[in-house]
């Protein structure tokens, strides 16, 4: 090996060691543990084959969490991306008060999710909460928004959208500012309407950003469960349990780490699918260079 190569590896070494210890090793360890029983009293669990996975297949809470998570992703991602794009277009235009608007949209991003969850918990509180105040003033009947399995998941989704839309707005804002003004001028000279210009010029140019935001949104919808811990603890009746929250409960409330590992494998598979999806798409039609 040349001196140059040795230097290269030496520079890389500290980061590589920590990455291996806290990312790659845990991934392999998760897979390994998912085929073993939970460690008891310091003794490593024996090999149990697919037993943890069999438990999973018959675990109703797992299926509930998985379907909840899919609905949660389907509900939050398109709405927050659409809102983010709308916000970015507004903030990027010559609209009055756009500095104020940018602040209003972006502020939730700076707050901790747990603070956000606390604020919204109060918002949804029966009788005292602001939501109740509004609905009773409008003559609607009182309702426990977070305590009702029908509405609880939707409430949590609203919180996620509120928190994330402003974050995604930033990426669109950056992309919009990189579009050459000459394109708009050319479109105007050709007599293209504003909606036509948006559909045929701006939107296609934003495609890589949309993909980037989409992948991040997918990851976040499986990664962030802070608000679940604060607002509902997965309840009522597991109506708001998401996959990672279920892992957290199995792993750290029931201390069944073998089964928690098997559940984590499912989560990792979903994230890997998102990664491969991005990889495949990036080479296809979304990239303009």
């Amino acid at each position, binding site marked *: *090996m040349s001196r*140059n190569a040795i230097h*290269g590896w030496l*520079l*890389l070494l*500290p*980061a*590589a*060691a*920590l*990455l291996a*210890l*806290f*990312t*790659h*090793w*845990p991934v392999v*360890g998760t897979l390994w*543990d998912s085929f073993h029983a939970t460690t008891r009293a310091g003794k490593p669990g024996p090999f149990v084959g697919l037993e943890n996975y069999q438990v999973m297949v018959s675990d109703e809470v797992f299926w509930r969490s998985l379907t909840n998570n899919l609905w949660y992703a389907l509900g939050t991602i398109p709405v927050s991306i659409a*809102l983010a794009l709308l916000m970015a277009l507004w903030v990027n235009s*010559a*609209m*009055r008060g756009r500095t104020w*608007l*940018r602040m*209003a949209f*972006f*502020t*939730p991003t*700076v*707050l*901790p*999710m*747990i*603070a*956000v969850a*606390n604020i919204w918990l*109060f918002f949804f509180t029966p009788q*005292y909460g*602001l939501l109740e105040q509004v609905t009773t003033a409008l003559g609607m009947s009182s309702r426990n928004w977070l305590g009702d399995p029908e509405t609880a998941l939707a409430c949590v989704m609203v919180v996620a959208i*509120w928190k994330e839309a402003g974050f995604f707005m*930033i*990426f669109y804002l*950056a992309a919009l500012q990189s579009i050459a*003004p000459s394109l708009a001028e050319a479109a105007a000279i050709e007599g293209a309407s504003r909606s036509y210009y948006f559909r045929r010029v701006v939107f296609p140019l934003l495609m890589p950003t949309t993909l980037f935001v989409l992948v991040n949104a997918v*990851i976040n919808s*499986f990664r962030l*469960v*802070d608000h679940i*811990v*604060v607002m509902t603890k997965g309840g009522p009746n597991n109506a708001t349990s998401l996959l*990672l929250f279920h*892992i*957290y409960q199995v*792993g*750290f409330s029931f201390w069944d780490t073998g089964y928690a*590992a098997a559940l*984590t494998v499912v989560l*990792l598979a979903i994230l*890997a699918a998102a990664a491969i999806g991005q990889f495949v798409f990036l080479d296809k039609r979304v990239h303009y260079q």
Partner: protein
Amino acid sequence: MRAERGLLETAAAWLLGVLWILPLAYAVWTAFHPPEYSVHFTPLAPLSLENFRRAWEAAPFARYFVNSFALVTMVLASQLVLCTLAAYAFARYEFRGKDVAFLLVLVQLMIMPDVLIVENYRTMSRLGILDSIPAIGLPYVASAFGIFLLRQTFKTVPRELDEAARVEGAGALQVLWKVYVPLARPVYLAYGLVSVSYHWNNFLWPLIITNSVASRPVTVGLQVFSSGDQGIDWSVITAATLMTSGPLLVAFLLFQRQFVQSFMRAGIR
């Protein structure tokens, strides 16, 4: 393009803006007024800091703040050193296995430590550092995001500058420190802001790994406080909530442009 927008559209934008700021405004109202005004909106309601005082006295928030400060400082400092070195290797060195190594780094962009809680808890337990501030930060120190961001930046540095410094007799690390790091200053600022807000706000992993006042960051402290024996004194809980988000929120409101630009810069890859 900065096109003029119609009145109707401006109104819609403002409505969304008001809607977006409303939950926070509501929290501010509740926190700064006596409890009996928390749902009565009269403009003449007396302002009060009593809720903040009660929250501050009811839980060891001072300690939580110290812990959070220690955490974000430690994480950011180690991230900057490790990511700079790794990014330099990826940007300017040729060695066998570099591409594979880079792919392995990128894995962390998809599979973040946030989802590897079960295994990482085990590792911390084996290392004997459960319930400590380093245990909260360690999994995040080798940040793939930081490495990627700095590598992209270092690659744009003209090689002539690098070579000129070497001709002057500077060693590899000196070149890194004197040429690359100063040129990447805006990126460091951007990354720093993103990292600090991420780790100040992080919750699930610190919740799992900490177990005592001595190591809990503010987010976990807030949760312990608000789910504890406070009952449902919303005014006090809201005050505590604003207090924990306070430093970042104030910094954001003061340096709004820098914040937004930093997040934008970190987002363009």
